[in-house]
């Protein structure tokens, strides 16, 4: 089931709606998420980094399982974590700290595998490349860096390398607000948005700026058309601008160069964007606490969900395993879902534990159901029979 999940910096919980039917699912309680601080870990559970009052020095990351509204696991990293991402199989969670450090946790054990100093200012957004071997981070000072995860884990290689990162882009002058990457592995493009009112298109393979587009307003969120023909930029003025990625436009309409249209319904600022898996429905979260689903083909609003009175700051479109659905539809906690809902992993560690070497030797392997399909079970007796018949024939020939 494809669901929209959304969270807010004010405590409105995490809303969850079926994208196609529009039905609201379970609402997960007590979440005050940071921007880009909501992640679905391997489709198994939700994780969100929390805004903390300035007095507290540690951060906070919470887990919710799909089937329960309460927070199930609380972790307290050494500093406040802003953006949070997970790799596609949910083995790792990566967080960006307010000091500019990036934290790399193994989910199953909760161990902090790596922490490295990535930026001079707080990390604002993170994403993993297509093949999940590169990590791209954006910071408050406008810097964008591309990291090879192999390099990060290769202490020897790190010492020999000139820079710990693959690329460092400093063309943005103010905070990077959002980044998104396209298809194509190492030949992908990256689109970044910043408070300097520009969106920039980068080539990952060349490490170069391809295009910079000025917008009339600050862009808070970007989403990439799956065909990579245009990108959608959600602005503080409430419009979602459509800008062309590589095709040259002679357009210089009222919005500016390369901007070829808008999606707008005169609402408050757009804070986050996400595409559905079909590449047609575009989900936007707004300052006014609503989530709009647009049809990118017709530019019409298909649906509106209401999350909170305060702003929405994260929307994701994720696939949710079906079993958890049963629990929400039935009021009773059926034994079925309890049995099948996987247990959540332990909390995330605070420090890199380098002393205990024995601990860092394991890799958790997810359970796999052995195929007990009768269809591919081989029957033996026929082969034994034919083999023995040929042996017997030899035997009889020998006798006669």
């Amino acid at each position, binding site marked *: 089931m494809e669901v929209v999940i959304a969270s807010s910096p004010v405590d409105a919980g995490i809303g969850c709606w079926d994208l196609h039917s529009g039905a609201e699912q379970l609402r997960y309680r007590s979440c005050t998420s940071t921007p880009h601080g909501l992640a679905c870990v391997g489709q198994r559970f939700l994780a969100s980094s929390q805004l903390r009052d300035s007095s507290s020095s540690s951060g906070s990351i919470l887990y919710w399982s799909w089937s329960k509204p309460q927070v199930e696991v609380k972790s307290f990293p050494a500093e406040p974590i802003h953006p949070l991402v997970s790799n596609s199989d949910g083995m790792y969670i990566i967080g960006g700290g307010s000091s500019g450090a990036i934290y790399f946790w193994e989910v199953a054990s909760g161990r902090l595998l790596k922490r490295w100093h990535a930026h001079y200012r707080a990390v604002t957004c993170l994403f993993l490349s297509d093949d*999940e*071997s590169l990590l791209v981070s954006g910071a408050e000072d406008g810097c964008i860096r591309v990291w090879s995860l192999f390099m990060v884990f290769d202490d020897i290689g790190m010492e020999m390398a000139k820079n710990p990162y693959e690329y460092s882009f400093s063309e943005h002058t103010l905070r990077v607000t959002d980044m998104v990457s396209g298809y194509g592995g190492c030949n992908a493009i990256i689109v970044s948005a910043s408070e300097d009112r520009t969106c920039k298109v980068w080539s990952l393979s*060349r490490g170069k700026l391809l295009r910079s587009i000025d917008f009339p307003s600050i862009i808070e969120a970007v989403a990439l058309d799956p065909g990579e023909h245009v990108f959608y930029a959600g602005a503080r003025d409430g419009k979602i601008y459509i800008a062309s990625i590589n095709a040259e436009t002679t357009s210089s309409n009222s919005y500016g160069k390369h901007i070829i249209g808008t999606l707008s319904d005169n609402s408050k600022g757009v804070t986050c964007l996400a595409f559905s898996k079909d590449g047609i429905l575009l989900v936007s979260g707004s300052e006014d606490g609503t989530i709009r689903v647009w049809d990118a083909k017709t530019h019409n609003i298909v649906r509106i969900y209401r999350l909170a009175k305060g702003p929405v700051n994260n929307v994701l479109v994720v696939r949710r395993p079906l079993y958890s659905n049963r629990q929400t539809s039935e009021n009773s906690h059926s034994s079925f879902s309890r049995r099948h809902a996987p247990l959540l992993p332990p909390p995330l560690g605070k420090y890199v534990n380098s002393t205990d070497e024995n601990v860092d030797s394991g890799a958790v392997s997810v359970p796999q159901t052995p195929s007990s399909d009768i269809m591919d079970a081989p029957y033996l007796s026929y082969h034994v029979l034919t083999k*023995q018949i040929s042996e017997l024939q030899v035997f009889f020939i020998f006798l006669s």
Partner: protein
Amino acid sequence: MAVFEHFQNLYDIRLKPRLLRSLIRDRVPDEKHPFSKPSELSIVVSAVKNHGLLSESSREAVDPKHMENWKSSIDAWIERLLLLVSSKMPDKCWAGICLLGLTCQECSSDRFLASYSVWFQKLLAQIQPPSDSHFVKVASCASLADLFTRLSGFSNIKKDVTSHAGKLIQPVLKLLTDDSSGAVWEGAVDLLCSIINFFPSSVHRHYESVEAAIVSKIMSGKCDSNISKFVHCLALLPRSKGDEDSWSLMLQKILISINVDLNDAFQGLEEAETKSNEVIKHLVPPGKEPPPPLGGNKMQGETSNQATEMSEQLILHRISMLMLCCCRMLTNPYPAQVIVPVRPLLVLVGRVLMVDGSLSQSLLPFLTVMQREFICSELPLLHLCGLDLLTGIIKRVRSQLLPHAADVVRLLTEYFRRCALPALRVKVYSILRILLISMGVGMAQYLAQEVVSNALVDLDSIAHGCGEASSTPCSKAASEGLLLPSYRKRKHGTITGFSEEQQGGVGTEMEAVKGKPITPIAVQTAALQALEALLTVGGALRSECWRQNVDLLLITVATNASNGGWANEEKDIFLLSDEPTSTRTDFQLAALRALLASLLSPARVRPPYLSQGLELFRRGKQETGTKVAEFCAHALLALEVLMHPRALPLVNFPSGDHPDFGQGFNCKFPKNIFSSGLKNNSPFPRGILGKDEIEPESNDDELYSSWLGNDEETEASASIPDKHLESRQELSEKDGRLSTEDHQAEKHPSDLPAGAQFPKEGDRGATDAAHMETGGIKDSIMAQSERVQEIIPNNDVRLQDKDVMVPTGDLTANVVEPNKGKIESSGSDSSKATPALSSEINNKVLMAAADANALPSDQGSLLTTSIVIEKGKKLVLEYNSDASKDSFPDIVDGEPDSD
């Protein structure tokens, strides 16, 4: 009697009981007559299987009377089988058991459920004393295994079956320990595996004794031919408990056991103490009790006694079997979440791979020359197992290899540098391939240099055979023909004995003959596959230093590989036994695949060997019915996108309901682009144009009008005819000369830029003349010249931008007029808009190019559309033949309009 009435055809169910009865009467042995021809049984089996004689089911409804008849014939069949099973004569008993196994597999569910427990008892009796025939025991094990396989499909009787299966374990273990026949062991192990697979909990109680029995078989080294089945069974065994601990414990025990054996085997060849301690340290955390030895405590005494007299051969054999077992444990699915001890596994693999037979310097030579010779001869097999284990680790831990990836890469690259034996190199290449594909570009950066330099060496012979091979393809084919059979023979040997040394010998033989080393075809294939993987994941990022060499290498190899003609697959099959080895077909396929990757992998300029590659694929495609042809067709499809790249807008061409402005707008983006820097001529075949011109109005008119009809909703609701007129005027004005060329442009855009300032014009004179008769349009354009004036500034602005964006063929629809802040749409009735625009564009392109000094004068023949991507630097033109079909009819159509 009605029972024996006619049957209609072979599908008639009345036939089935007849057939079955005749089988029982004529072919199935009975008590009275001697059973002389066991081959009769295979006729029975195939008749039963082919006709579904025991299935008791029919697709259509049948007369219950016939069904009853069928049923009674099966009753008779089973009655006979049970009689046979109880027979005193072993051969008849054997026949009954075999056919009962077949019945388990074939009979209807109802019958099976009703009788399985009787059958089980019958079969069970046959594997216990006093039964003593090996044949009977083996057949009983197989039939029992099939009984349980079938039972696994019925989940409702699981409990009952589990208890049945539990009764079986003791007798089966007894077969393993008491019996002396390898065939019986094999049958017993197969049965055990089936039970562990389908009814794991029945083995639970006997876990330790099963482990002990299997381990003792593996350790004794007595069962050579089917040892891998025991290994498989041991690897499956933890599934009978199904929890994390039993899996981990088993793996831990095996690793410790391997480690102990390695200490013995590698004495004097490595610093055993330190290596061994390292593994143990990771396996058994300090302060914890080491686990009991593999196979239980009883085993310990036994093995340590044996150890003294155990031959080196046995030790090495055991090590490789246990490594195989680890590998199986890693690759078989396991129902519980387990923690894979990656670190100790990697250390162990490293330990094995790092021993190359050279004496450890700090140690005194413990070994006799004979011992060393023996170890060296067995090492390749051990290395192969180590590499297999490494593959297993990588497959199991997937993304979690990340923290260890650098270690793995270092281990592999170091090993690769020294590894000289073909089979091992093939394995290393395959691991590199897995790593590249699974871990992406980050891994590619690490491995690129290693893969490329090794592949260059391995493919050197074929790459440099270039000149000579192309002139004398026969000699090359002959030399490979010479090489192949011997290589295959050895390869065959690898499974059991593995004598890699001799393979090296083949190389040197050839070297002696030809004067240069020849790499076996399997290694070359593997090298090509690794290069393909490298190009697939990492062709774009930081590849400058190796890309050029690799591209050249791959086109050379592919050309040379195909020069001797495409391999005959049938011949390959004929030559091969059932051994999967690398053949010439595989090699050619690998070469073509790698070539495709080299052409498709992102590059900044056109792949230098594009046309040679295309030619190769075209030729290969003609080899009807071969894998090569299949792949070549795929390659041509993939390359088409390279030629006509698409950045497709999110628009389903609307079926007319409501394409709003945005859609129409998106449509204007070009569909096809190629870089004019590479190709400055749009290869627009004039023939097509001409044809299109005379084609009647296309069906798409409705589509166009629906766009136009909906334009009112949009913000750019400008009147379309005006707009397109504007653009035409714009064009005319721009040229300043407005006469024939402009006009020509409408008719023949390809000739369009033949403006006076271009030298090309002369060449086009004839065409120009040919189209003079369309002068009427020109007049109409001129007539509106006052509008032209206001357009000119637009053009100037655009030129400053040096950005040109034009609709192409079927996208004819819309164009943005930037200075006006609105959009012009040119639809079906804006007939001349397309050519007019194109000419306008051409002009702009030319101007832009003039600024940038980048445009060849030939640019004139650019057609329909063009885009500038990087400002003023690189012109990107587009061309779409489909598009042209749509647009050009409109031109013709439109002329009357404009008048």
